[in-house]
């Protein structure tokens, strides 16, 4: 359940930024979470629900998580795959030349408020 500490960090980042921007109520927080990031989106949502409780800044806020599948590309032969088909050693040519194109994201994309 490291999602709790991650969500706590997200809210601190947004809080600091909101203070600078003079925003008193946050309506929406947007994040991107890759499938390879060891982060479970439902656990993030649960942590968000608990952590924002009693916090005026986030009382009306919703959390939007864009999930990114693992996408890989072989730089030797051009093979590519996504999601459950993704492998880290090329299944076409066997080369150790597979690059992870997406799936490692864990970002706070932005937020809206007033």
């Amino acid at each position, binding site marked *: 359940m490291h999602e709790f500490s991650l969500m706590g960090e997200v809210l601190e980042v947004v809080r600091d930024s909101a203070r600078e921007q003079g925003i008193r109520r946050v309506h929406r927080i947007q994040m991107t979470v890759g499938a390879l990031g060891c982060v479970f989106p439902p656990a993030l949502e649960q942590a968000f629900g608990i952590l924002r409780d009693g916090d005026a800044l986030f009382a009306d806020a919703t959390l939007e998580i864009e999930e990114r599948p693992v996408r890989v590309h072989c730089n030797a032969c051009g093979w590519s795959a996504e999601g459950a088909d993704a492998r880290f050693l090329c299944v076409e040519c066997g080369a150790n030349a597979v690059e992870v194109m997406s799936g490692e994201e864990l970002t*706070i994309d932005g937020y809206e408020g007033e």
Partner: protein
Amino acid sequence: MIKVRLMQKVMESNDAVAAENARKLRDAAVFSVDMMSAPGSGKTTILERTLDALIPALTIGVIQGDVDTTRDAERVQARGAQTVQINTGGACHLDAPAVAGALEDLDLDALDLLVIENVGNLICPTGFALGAHERVMVLSVTEGADKPEKYPAMFRSCSLALVNKTDLLPVLGLDLEAFAEEIARVNPDMQILPVSALTGEGMEDWYQWLRDRMAEGQ
């Protein structure tokens, strides 16, 4: 309504502290490894043997991360390592600020090597950089060869796998090849050293790996 675009990594503040930890260790010429594994893989036993073999030729510090108890810290302290215990109090991983606090309690100038024994867990510690030079994974053969594919992010974040409890391979009816193949499928660059912390087989290769990395750093 104001829209604010941040595009900030969630791990940014942890990573900044990790970079500061790495700088401190580099300045004090301390080589450091972050050891990860599932619970019960034999990390502490490997560490005990390592301390017995390398002390007093090397001065070694250990940061022991555990959810609770000081049992592991007592085990390694008895071996002559400078030891700092971090009880995470339920948290499933160490983070860079916790390690920064522990570094304050160590005499870094006296150390040659620092081993950070992370909380036994193949998921949560993955994303939390601590500032160690290398991440080393312990995989015991009793866990089965399917673990790399089940926990790819952890295996991809480490440069070396110590495949431990090789003395049990005949009992399990498994061979090392299966582990090597499975590891290569998720992290083809990962180096693999088979060891038995019980019999000592293969342990000299691990000590040599440490000596080689330390020599490279100087």
